[in-house]
């Protein structure tokens, strides 16, 4: 019997990393045809690093998938392609524009937020490739409706999440079984907070799209939010366009992602800023979650990841 002297050496990031690697390997061991959702955002950047640690020197046992809303920042798309090529892994891109052309997504106006419509394109991609598990970078601390999310979250054949019909999840014994057409969403960084993510990015020296760091940008103030002035989100008549130093805390569809004022132009500065920050991640920067207190819960029921 070996004395167990090493456990005390794991710091909290080591522990979170080891758990995430364990979850990724469970997906690989249990699922026939998984896929990893990679958007170029910071959470999925962490997932890719974790997948490297989990599976190298082998190849990833899954391709990468991005649902492109057509409203993404160019810097993020360029980063996405660069990172996938750097890893030498297969990247599948399915675009919401195709769903609009097919008629499965109907948008009210070309500039409205496409965030909620992503679910349709995602479900179409799942059907097209027959994926039985989608690995995502969602975290339980992001939003109230996620606090009860399972690490392996079951979705029925319509991609629906039924909070009352989730499998009990005990110890680390995950159950990824599905029948044809059903789907598991697996969340390896469920137990991470925004600060953990930034600390991990700093520790692993991970590259990110440049708009995560402080940069000068033209914005207008709308209520408490800073709205970036873009082709999709022009200033309204009478609004004052100001240039200020901002960074994005989350990155999504342009019309629903707002930056925060910041001078943090390095990962270390962002870690320090995140540690003392006084507003929640989604509260500050996701214009769509504020619509109603239960809006995330609603979207998840409809198949949002």
């Amino acid at each position: 019997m070996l004395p167990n002297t090493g456990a005390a050496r794991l710091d909290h990031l080591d522990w979170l990393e080891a758990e995430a690697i364990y979850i990724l390997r469970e997906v690989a061991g249990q699922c026939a045809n998984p896929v990893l959702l990679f958007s170029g955002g910071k959470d999925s950047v962490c997932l890719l690093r974790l997948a490297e640690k989990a599976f190298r020197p082998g190849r990833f046992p899954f391709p990468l998938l991005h649902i492109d809303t057509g409203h993404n920042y160019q810097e993020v798309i360029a980063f996405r392609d660069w990172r996938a090529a750097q890893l030498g892994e297969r990247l599948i891109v399915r675009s919401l524009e195709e769903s609009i052309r097919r008629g499965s997504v109907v948008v009210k106006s070309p500039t409205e937020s496409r965030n909620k419509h992503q679910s349709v394109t995602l479900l179409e991609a799942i059907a097209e490739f027959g994926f039985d598990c989608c690995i995502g970078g969602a975290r339980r601390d992001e939003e109230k409706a996620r606090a009860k999310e399972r690490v392996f979250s079951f979705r029925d054949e319509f991609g629906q999440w039924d909070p009352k019909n989730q499998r009990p999840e005990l110890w680390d014994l995950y159950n990824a079984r599905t029948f044809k057409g059903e789907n598991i969403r697996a969340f390896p960084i469920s137990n991470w907070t925004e600060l953990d993510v930034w600390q991990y990015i700093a520790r692993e020296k991970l590259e990110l799209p440049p708009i995560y760091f402080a940069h000068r940008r033209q914005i207008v103030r709308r209520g408490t939010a800073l709205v970036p002035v873009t082709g999709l989100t022009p200033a309204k008549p009478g609004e004052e366009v100001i240039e200020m130093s901002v960074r994005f805390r989350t990155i999504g569809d342009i019309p629903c992602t707002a930056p925060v004022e910041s001078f943090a132009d390095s990962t270390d500065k962002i870690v320090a800023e995140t540690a003392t920050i006084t507003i929640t991640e989604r509260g500050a920067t996701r214009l769509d979650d504020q619509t109603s207190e239960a809006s995330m819960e609603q979207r998840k029921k409809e198949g949002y990841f």
Partner: protein
Amino acid sequence: MSTIENLSAIDNGLLRFLTCGSVDDGKSTLIGRLLYDTKTILADALHAIEHTSRRRGLDGIDLSLLTDGLSAEREQGITIDVAYRYFSTGRRKYIIADAPGHEQYTRNMVTAASTADLAILLIDVRKGVLTQTRRHSCIARLLGIRHLVIAVNKMDLVGYSQQVFDAVKRDYLTFADRIGIADVRFVPLSALVGDMVVDRGERLAWYRGPTLLEILEAAPRAHSEDAEPFRFPVQYVCRPQAADDPELHDFRGYMGRVESGAIALGDRIRVLPSGGTARIKDIRSGERSVYTATAEQSVTLLLDAELDVSRGDMMVESTDALQPRKQLDAMLCWLSEIPLDVNRRYSLRHTTREVKALVAGIAYRLDINTLEREARAGLRMNDIGRVSFKLAQPLCADSYASNRSTGAFIVIDEASNNTVGAGMIL
């Protein structure tokens, strides 16, 4: 008070704990208080609950609203599921599993307890030890939680009286002794006012022990208290077979997490159930080679001999006496609305292995309020009983009391793919 601002302080890893008690005990308020006083609550979340508190005609902030969950349960005013919350003191990261208290939610508490190293059990000082307190204590004991903290809450409502606190403590100790709970600590506190949760406050000067947070900060880490045997269930086999890279051509890495104990380069291991032995040639953590790996680390092991190893196999030290077995006795908590059917075949998932199983017998059902045994022919949802299984293939199991990772299993109903039972091997 140390807060999240002290990022450079010593990182004492992570502690998972469970809170149990009913809404009436002030559990939500206690969690809200922990989050609030460790400055985990952010301005907009606070603003939202201030708004709701005002709308409901309350004077102050109702901290219990911070842990309010899904809209379905808000409507019903109950909590239907385990919620996970996070906070950090800069010295340690905490994961709270927040379990609802009602009797019909035994399975939720079992779920929450399965990953917890410590449990905080709330007692309303005015009500003392209730049936529910006993039930929660029994479950915590069954699930192998080593450290129990009894938070005697609402001290503000009894004038912070030491006498009342001492009476509750005496009562509980009598009960704890009977069911065999060894490590139990008591803290008098007021979650509402905040005394002895994070800050000491001024009204409980007679109490000289640590605050609740001080107990959490000092709680021993998982796997740190006893020497444990090495257990490594294989999760995944990595065979890159890259034709263009001669170094990778014969690469065969066994990927998994060390569930207990430790392993070092050169150690001789045995692969179960087949029994073949080999030495550890390389240990990889990410891209690096390391000399040792210890409990809770995810690594890749390389062997010096070619053995037939696949997912579901278990590596142990070569001298370990662990024997594969095709029969087991367990305490089983039933989780499904469809009762356990002794005539059906189930699937058991134990570590990374899945086997078919038949129920060989139900010895008794446990009264979860007293741990007394009752003869019973079946198990329904929220029942816990002693069940024996016959297995189609062997498992390499330890007793749950000696090893939580290799002593636990779940039962899967193959007709629905649902997880229907949680077992602890005897």
